[in-house]
């Protein structure tokens, strides 16, 4: 997806607006306001909150260096709003690498750092904190285990 958005940066503004309107029409829920529901999420997912504080907050919390550079807040993170947690879990497991020779988002991979249960806790916490969508159904630890196997080539 990175190369697509990079190339589209050169498209005429009218085209960018037209594409945006079309995509938003496919995502009715995306117009709902979202907010950082930190305290409610901490109450419902205390373990996820602790793991987030020690692993993710250094970049993703208000006031973190990444946020001060104008990078998007996790409320705008598309994977957190998806119907299933697979993309979120894969990003936690594998991280993000910027393209070779270009600057871009970077995130460390947590596959070796967290157990399946811990990945599940973090995913549930992120969904509760940064979206107003229903919690992901199913056993997220099991999803993390499946995603881990899929991610191994």
């Amino acid at each position, binding site marked *: 997806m990175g190369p697509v958005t990079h190339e589209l940066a050169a498209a005429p503004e009218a085209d960018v607006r037209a594409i945006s309107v079309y995509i938003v029409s496919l995502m009715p829920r995306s117009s709902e306001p979202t907010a950082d529901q930190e305290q409610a999420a901490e109450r419902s997912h205390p373990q996820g909150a602790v793991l987030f504080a020690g692993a*993710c907050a*250094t970049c993703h919390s208000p006031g973190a260096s990444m946020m001060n550079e104008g990078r998007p807040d996790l409320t705008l993170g598309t994977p957190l709003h998806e119907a299933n947690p697979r993309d979120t879990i894969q990003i936690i497991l594998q991280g993000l690498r910027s393209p070779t020779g270009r600057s871009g988002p970077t*995130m460390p991979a947590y596959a070796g750092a967290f157990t399946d249960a811990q990945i599940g806790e973090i995913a549930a916490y992120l969904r509760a904190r940064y979206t107003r969508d229903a919690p992901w159904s199913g056993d997220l630890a099991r999803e993390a285990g499946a995603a881990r196997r899929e991610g191994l080539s």
Partner: protein
Amino acid sequence: VSLALTLNGRPRTFDGEPSTPLLYALRNDFELNAAKFGCGLGQCGACTVLVDGRAVFSCVLPMAALAGRSVRTAEGLGAPDRPGPVQAAFEQEQAAQCGYCIPGMMMRAQALLERNNRPTETEVREALSPSLCRCGTHMRILRAVRRAALAMGGGVRDPAEPLGSIPTASERLP
């Protein structure tokens, strides 16, 4: 909060904030100073240690994640008078210049060679790539990993250069 973990083969207990990064607990509570603070963002690799045998960035790993797990630092690879094979190889090849990245590099080499002591050159470079070295001793670090692989009963399959003789004192970096 109190949590139990295994640290360099010994049972240890951590008392403190569960969100404390492992790196801070290692350096401040357990007084193990091999792992270094570099960027604090999981991007430079100076803080790399092993958790259950896998190389991780300890600066972005909270203690809460470590209950019942096994952590290994460069102190756990050997001691000055009886260095482990990875430590001995890094010393023999004089792989350190400033040395700040070296504990992390050694832990990545250890994780790789424990899993696979006959890696390809590409596998070695991929395993080490999350650790950054700004001095530029990469070629010496790679030589050290090739030497360590041999010492651990294997060897790099397609070494980019043959294993040379161990540098003499006069050839060593100042």
